[in-house]
């Protein structure tokens, strides 16, 4: 066990964990930010997506040691009032079914749009391929990413 200071949602947090602990479980168990989900633990489903230095990453694949002081944003920190354009587009298109994958989808979409503000269908396909939605809301996700893009640009 070791002490780490990690920077999550703009605040430093002291945590005690063994060095190989995935960021996912530190965020969920130690910090109580449970919006970031566990789906596979092996980087395949994207449910655990957070932003590290502003870029979408799988938090199950990043150890607390490897993270160092790089700033992390979780779904809870994406916007102050839940009004990030991607979040608003998600409401507009009534995207969720069960909802479990959606925090990860939104984090991937926000990162995609910060890199490619006007994505083509192919860009969206490529940018969102790492996020599984078991309920099959892909068409609504696709439409919501597009409408968020128009609002952002």
């Amino acid at each position: 066990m070791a002490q780490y200071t990690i920077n999550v949602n703009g605040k430093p947090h002291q945590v005690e964990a063994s060095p190989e602990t995935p960021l996912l479980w530190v965020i969920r168990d130690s910090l109580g930010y449970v919006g970031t989900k566990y789906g596979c633990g092996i980087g395949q489903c994207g449910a655990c997506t957070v932003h590290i230095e502003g870029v979408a990453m799988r938090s199950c694949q990043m150890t607390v040691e490897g993270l160092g002081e790089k700033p992390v944003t979780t779904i809870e920190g994406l916007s102050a009032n839940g009004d990030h354009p991607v979040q608003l587009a998600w409401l507009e298109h009534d995207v969720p079914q069960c909802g479990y994958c959606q925090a990860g989808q939104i984090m991937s979409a926000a990162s995609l749009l910060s890199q490619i503000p006007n994505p083509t269908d192919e860009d969206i396909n490529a940018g969102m391929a790492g996020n599984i939605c078991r309920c099959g809301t892909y068409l609504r996700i696709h439409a919501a990413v597009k409408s968020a893009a128009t609002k952002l640009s």
Partner: protein
Amino acid sequence: MSTQPTRRNFLKVSAAAGGGFLLGFSFLTSCEQKAVATLAPELVMPEQWVQLNGFLKIGANGVITIVSPNPEIGQNVKTSMPMLIAEELDADWEQVIVEQGKLNTDIFTRQLAGGSQSIRHGWEPLRKTGATARAMLLAAAAQQLSVPVEELTTEKGMIHHAASGQQVGYGAVAELAATLPVPETVALKAPKDFKIIGQGKKNVDARKIATGQPLFGLDVQREGMLIASIVHPPAFGMQLKSVDDSAALAMPGIRKVVTINTAPEGAELQWSDTNAFPRLVAVVGETTWQVLQAKKALKLEWEQVSAPESTEAHRAAFEEQLTNGKTEVARRDGDPEAAFASAAKIIEATYSAPLLPHNTLEPMNFFAHVTADKAELLGPIQTPEFLEKTLVSVLGLQPEQIEIGMTRMGGGFGRRLYGHFGVEAALISKAAGAPIKLVYTREDDMTQGTYRPDYLVRYRAGLDAEGKLIAFHIRGTGTNGSPVFANRFPAGAVDNYLVENFGQPSNVSTGAWRAPQSNFIAGAEQAFLDEVAEAAGKDPIDFRLELFERASKNPVGEKNDYEPERYAGVLKLVREKSNWDADSGDARGVAAYYCHDSYVAQVLDLTLDSAGKPQVEAVYCAVDCGIVVNPEGAINQVEGGIVDGIGHALYGQLTITDGKPQQDNFNSYRLIRHPEAPKRIETYFVDNGIDPTGLGEPSLPPVVGALANALYMATGKRVYDQPFIGELPG
């Protein structure tokens, strides 16, 4: 017509600090239904609630809490069931918050998510609940305004007296209303007067979902709560023999290692207790990661208790049954043997599908806190009532000592009908003497069983010289039972008909998977009918319509489980909407199916890329599910079922070798991903005013057939064995 609420439910309650008392679990608090491009302001919580009945609480400021009784697995009942109450209450939907009800068999009936039946069964009782409350609010207003009740009208949470110009809000009369007698009978609105039903309402939890608020079982956090995780045998047919936990116990954060048995001798178990692995080891510790690491340090011995099975052995046994097996006949019309002997043409085809795990994206989990005289459980469960029954037996407690709360579920698809994980959580909490949250890893989840059974079905059809279908024969089998429904279409449309069902017992546990049996048999049947239509030289839609006409005008046999007119109706609608009779330029397939009381027909267009990989360009879908309560949610369900059906038919497959599942996570088990989804889905509902029926399942089964038929048009080769991707070139 008697009404649901009883006198004792009419309590007046006052708010504790922050209003938190209303909610057993504060993270299940209210939700906002506004979902527009800018956020609506949050509703202001009233200082005091008046509880009108088990479903309704009204605040002095007019905000209304509606309790949604049934488990929410993504089928959107948490939005659509409260809409039924709000409709007859004449509530202002913008002032409604929805709260998930706990298991309470005194107030609620059928708190179960399964078979696409929530709306069908809730349709009348929930509307009556709303109408009863409205009648009491009206009676109170009549007293308060000193006017005859007949002169009052309601609209959006307000009561109006036109003659005097007076008006009063529900919140202002709720307290008085709660003291008035409950009316014996109430009238319900005619569908033409609906103001909320039939309007697209956004998911009531959407904002919480989009901001990552705690909603799911895996999100439960409690003071002093420990994490637990189980280890089950590595293969079906094995059981736990011995445990050496010394290394695991020495690891940081680990508190206990316990062994449990969810099926102890003498326990009264339910159908929902289906579970291949009742004896388990569980590690209990402080954090999830610590517990997962300690599981690997357990030294466990297993013993073989029944013979190991394999996918190949299943298939061989099925083939043997269908070829040589003798069985009970499930349906017989006319003289099938003679008809086949006289047929000008006989078409025969055999279809198969593999085992499928449900793979809800949220793995199994449950919170439990069990003490000597009380058990408190909270988690994702489709069958809380059955879980309670099992807990009574296994824990030796009375129902009053058990409290079961339901979280929003990260997917169900049938998996959470089987509540062994709730029982496991309770037993672990009891053994560990602490509140615990049981967490399955993806691997624990995917290799645990309760799969969609693997199936094999053989069809034979006989055509006369004019291409008329004169004989039909189905033999079906599968793990733990046959997928064939004896009295579904085309039974009733063919003079000579024979259905024979087999089944193969197995130690691999299987269960209901979204649209049980239909999820396979619809695709097989619809692909076969396509082949028969081709042999008869007929357009596939014309061919089916002729059969429906026959079943409608002059049905064969007494028991035909469908209405041919409604079946034909969706097929005609999809023909029109997809412009079937023109050429779309893409390879197209059509299918129609009836299950869970609803009718669905689909046309699917696809193209193949240069590598031969299919891309679904469009799916046109016509649905007859009676009145559509919430079109927004209904379309989402239909789209989900289509994506799910295409994904599993193309890619889904779990195989078994030496009793051991060969896929255990999403690197070895392929789920459909974003780029593979259809580019476009168009959904059309038949508007017929019939009472609503299920929608969580019916769009899935036929799309498998439409896909198979479109693949044939694209490749010239028929596909018979799922997953289809294995049958495609490249």
